């Protein structure tokens, strides 16, 4: 495309207009809302966004008329698909480790990085009620305190928003749009799905470190998530669920409500802006309705039916592709184990040998803390920093001028952004303060 010819305004406008029209026409059909929901809920978006979509998709799915498939037996045996995925606790642990790995890696590339708070991680994982997307509020304690709000604080500050538009930062993050990619294939046949995942920068390093083979994990996980989508589609159409919903509606009618769909009361009390409001206080009416709603889900057997059906369809999915389920389970176990080893300081990522000249001496501020943020260290990091500070303290004590010149050969942990600055003008007092700050 590049040439010696300088485009005129008209030529450039025409080229851009054609590009926009062509790309807009090439995007294809959008995926089902339901499919996207499942991905978001498990992996990425904060609870607020996921919850909005869950509600919408759940309503759409329940309203949709679908062809009936043979129904799986409720008394079947064998493993169910959920056994091969992350538990909520495992997902929080792995995401937490991933976060620290990304921080380490970005620091070695001279780039800032803000850790997600524990609270934010927990909002993304495991805080939605059981079967929230299918039948709404099911937790009696949350009903009594939150009404239909998914959590008291549904949004968290994205700590990396400030620099996410910086192309240099994005390139170090995942290689950017022009970086390397891995193709996502059907793990059973190797046939490309047409999708791919970026595999450059720190993201690629972290994925390889955690899963061993990013391409294989991504393909197996994509298949696994598609199976979950398929389960949910079948599940919500199951006449046994519909029967339980009718019993729930009868129970609600006995309490003075007229809702026919278990998502209706939730939708009724929510509006578009409710997710932007932190600590929204539900009205007494909302709480009373939610409490009655959950009580009916329990007494009518709807919640039990939901659980039984989920297991039944999960068993069916495993029977359909047992090898892939087992492989996904192994990949999950690997990631969980390596995350724990990383957090304990038993493993370090390959990025530790990948230090650029610009890091970590990219500031003249000497704080000893990672990027001046709150001290939030894993056990391994805490031990690493304690050892390093001990070495610095010993070197300073041995130095006649009580300066840090003799510690120049000491290498601070790569995530200690300001460590390099401290090497230039640290004093015994600063080191003592830093060591004290590490004490529980």
């Amino acid at each position: 495309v590049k040439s010696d010819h300088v485009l005129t305004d008209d030529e450039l406008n025409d080229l851009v207009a054609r590009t926009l029209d062509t790309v807009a026409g090439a995007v294809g059909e959008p995926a089902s809302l339901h499919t996207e929901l499942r991905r978001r809920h498990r992996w990425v978006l904060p609870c607020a966004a996921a919850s909005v979509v869950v509600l919408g998709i759940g309503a759409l799915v329940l309203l949709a008329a679908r062809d009936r498939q043979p129904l799986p037996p409720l008394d079947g045996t064998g493993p169910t698909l959920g056994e091969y995925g992350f538990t909520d606790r495992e997902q929080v642990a792995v995401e937490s480790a991933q976060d620290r790995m990304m921080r380490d890696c970005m620091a070695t590339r001279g780039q800032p990085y803000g850790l997600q708070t524990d609270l934010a991680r927990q909002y993304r994982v495991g805080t939605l009620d059981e079967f929230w997307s299918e039948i709404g509020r099911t937790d009696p304690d949350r009903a009594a305190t939150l009404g239909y709000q998914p959590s008291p604080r549904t949004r968290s500050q994205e700590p990396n928003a400030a620099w996410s538009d910086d192309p240099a930062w994005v390139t170090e993050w995942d290689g950017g749009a022009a970086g390397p990619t891995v193709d996502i294939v059907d793990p059973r046949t190797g046939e490309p799905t047409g999708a791919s995942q970026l595999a450059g920068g720190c993201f690629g390093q972290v994925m390889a470190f955690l899963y061993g083979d990013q391409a294989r994990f991504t393909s197996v996980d994509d298949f696994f998530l598609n199976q979950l989508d398929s389960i949910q589609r079948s599940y919500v159409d199951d006449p046994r669920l519909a029967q339980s919903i009718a019993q729930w509606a009868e129970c609600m009618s006995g309490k003075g409500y007229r809702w026919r769909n278990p998502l209706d009361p939730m939708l009724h009390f929510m509006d578009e802006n409710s997710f932007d409001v932190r600590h929204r206080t539900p009205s007494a009416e909302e709480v009373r309705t939610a409490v009655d709603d959950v009580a009916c889900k329990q007494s009518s057997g709807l919640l039990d039916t939901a659980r039984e059906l989920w297991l039944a369809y999960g068993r069916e999915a495993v029977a359909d592709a047992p090898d892939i389920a087992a492989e996904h389970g192994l990949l999950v176990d690997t990631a969980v184990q390596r995350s724990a080893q990383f957090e304990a300081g038993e493993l370090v990522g390959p990025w530790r040998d990948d230090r650029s000249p610009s890091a970590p001496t990219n500031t003249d501020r000497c704080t000893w803390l990672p990027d001046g943020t709150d001290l939030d260290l894993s056990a391994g990091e805490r031990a690493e920093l304690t050892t390093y500070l001990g070495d610095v303290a010993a070197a300073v004590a041995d130095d006649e001028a009580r300066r840090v010149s003799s510690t120049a050969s000491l290498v601070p942990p790569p995530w200690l952004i300001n460590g390099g600055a401290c090497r230039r003008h640290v004093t015994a007092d600063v080191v003592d303060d830093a060591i004290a700050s590490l004490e529980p």
Partner: protein
Amino acid sequence: MVRPMSELPVDGEEVTRPAESVEAVYRRLGRELLGLATLLTGSRQSGEELLHDVFAAAIPRWSSIEQPEHYLRRAIVNRVRSHQRRLVTAGRWRPDPDVVTGEPEIDETWRLLRALPANQRAAIVLRIKLGLADREIAGHLDCSEATVRSLVSRGLGRLRKELS
């Protein structure tokens, strides 16, 4: 708030609804709106998530939306900025594949458009694709009209430099 039982429609009572269901509108307009969302965000995946966000948010108020097509298009444009901030997290673990048209000139130009800062790209899309006036674009991007002109000028200037 929950209405008293006496105010609730009884079975068979007519309830005001838009002419088309959410699903029908999604089927009819989904592809077109996905195209717009993809251009504004620079990413098919981000565009699709934006599209789904907009539909999901519209469901609770569907009965009060008189012109779904107009409403949804405006909602996509209006939500681009906040949506992109939110997707910073999403992009971390689920980066998206690029749209490929098979036409080298178009693909290269799209690659360069994607590489533009988000505001520059959005300003160009809103002006060239949707034909909006600078005043309307300024409203969507929460900036002055002068800034809109600057964003478009700088964006196109960068494209020209890269393509020449």
